[in-house]
């Protein structure tokens, strides 16, 4: 394995900011308009070896903590929400392998390869017929000898055709009930993807989240050894909501920065700035503050579990509610923040061009509450709220 100089988190952060300001921001509008994959951004992230930032150093990654990786998602969220979403979704799949695959020879080898080749991982959890209910599958993995086959009707797989591998949830065998699920890491190059639906959407257009019938085969070692119920509770659920919450906070921060810039420019032009404009900016920052605060609390709780190697704590209803609240609140507050920023900026924000434009941000922000529908999440919280004594 090639040796790589260790770099500090501060250096990594500076690199991501640099890439964000230059390459990522420069192509964000085109990515959005064409609803195309952010190739330039990912070529740069790969060449800076940023796809393996969460992989432990002994496999060749940077071994960053989840708090640190989430900070990178937040930074990217300032510049291009689609790039940040793809980066976050990739990190969620990486975390599943890092937390639940290290004991398997296949997966530890894969982690090493991931670092060397800077592989990009996608996810196919949603399935035709079960909607956004993560905890049930219709399709199953069929094992014969040491080979498996798997066919899934997946209505949404972000960047499927640009990924190197896809982590697919399915029932663990032909007779298994809907909730007895497992995950299989399929090699995209060896998978047949027949288009079901396109991705011409309001926002997050660059995530290229089209639908496919996925037909995969491979070696049975590609089946993750930990049951999906455990992977979900210990890793996928908290990591998804925390990294998404982070990137949405980054989007909100980006919009707030634009509003601030607009207010300053107005002040430069005339020192008679209407008081209400600055007041609105102060209010806007309060919402952003609540977003950051809620996220930080849950992040700290989860990071403590990771640091003490006690992911069983993540199964507690109290924690699950907290993480769900990060998802529902951040996804709704990001819309609130961007809308408030638009009110402050005025017509300049409503224009599709110009340095104050907030159109793309507003469209993207509306996707957050739909990816794993907030009503579904509130439904889970509603049942847990009945049993817990205190949240």
């Amino acid at each position, binding site marked *: 394995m090639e040796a790589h100089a260790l770099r500090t988190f501060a250096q990594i952060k500076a690199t991501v900011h640099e890439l964000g300001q230059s390459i990522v921001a420069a192509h964000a509008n085109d990515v959005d308009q064409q609803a195309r994959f952010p190739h330039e951004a990912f070529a740069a992230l790969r060449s800076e070896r940023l796809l393996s930032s969460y992989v432990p150093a002994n496999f060749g990654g940077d071994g960053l903590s989840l708090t640190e990786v989430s900070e990178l998602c937040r930074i990217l969220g300032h510049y291009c929400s689609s790039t940040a979403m793809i980066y976050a979704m990739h990190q969620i799949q990486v975390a599943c392998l890092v937390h639940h695959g290290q004991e398997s020879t296949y997966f530890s080898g894969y982690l090493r390869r991931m670092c060397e080749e800077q592989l990009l991982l996608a996810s196919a959890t949603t399935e035709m017929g079960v909607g956004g209910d993560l905890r049930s599958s219709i399709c199953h993995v069929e094992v014969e000898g040491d080979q498996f086959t798997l066919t899934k009707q997946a209505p949404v797989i972000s960047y499927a055709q640009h990924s190197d591998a896809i982590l697919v949830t399915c029932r663990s065998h032909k007779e298994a009930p809907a909730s*007895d699920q497992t995950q299989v890491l399929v090699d995209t190059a060896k998978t047949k993807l027949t288009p079901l639906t396109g991705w011409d959407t309001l926002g997050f257009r660059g995530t290229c989240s089209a639908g496919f019938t996925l037909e995969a085969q491979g070696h049975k070692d590609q089946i993750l050894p930990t049951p999906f119920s455990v992977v979900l509770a210990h890793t996928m659920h908290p990591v998804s909501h925390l990294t998404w919450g982070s990137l949405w906070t980054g989007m909100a921060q980006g919009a707030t920065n634009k509003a601030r810039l607009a207010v300053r420019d107005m002040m430069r032009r005339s020192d008679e700035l209407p008081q209400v404009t600055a007041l609105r900016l102060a209010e806007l920052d309060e919402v952003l503050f609540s977003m950051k605060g809620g996220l930080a609390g849950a992040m700290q709780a989860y990071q403590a579990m990771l640091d003490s190697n006690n992911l069983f704590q993540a199964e507690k209803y109290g924690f699950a509610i907290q993480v769900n609240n990060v998802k529902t609140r951040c996804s709704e507050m990001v819309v609130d923040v961007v809308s408030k920023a638009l009110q402050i900026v005025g017509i300049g924000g409503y224009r599709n061009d110009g340095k104050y434009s907030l159109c793309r941000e507003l469209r993207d922000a509306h996707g957050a509450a739909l990816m794993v529908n907030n009503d579904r999440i509130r439904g889970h919280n509603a049942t847990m709220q009945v049993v817990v004594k205190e949240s």
Partner: protein
Amino acid sequence: MYQERIRSIVAKSVKLSKDITDIQDSDDLYSVGLTSLTTVNLMLSLEDEFDIEFDDNRLSRQTFESIAALNDAVEELSA
């Protein structure tokens, strides 16, 4: 030692995909029909039956995942 009483409560409050007599003490109840919603009914019925209260620290999937796990919880809570 509470297994039999727990079994009859599980059979009443959960829509099981198998007969309760075909379920072993260590079987995963979530794969035979227990859902997050029915977990609430199950917990409330157990609290009534045994006159106990599940503390927040115990509220996780693990506690409800099998007859054996439920028995451990009931034994500890009623001790």
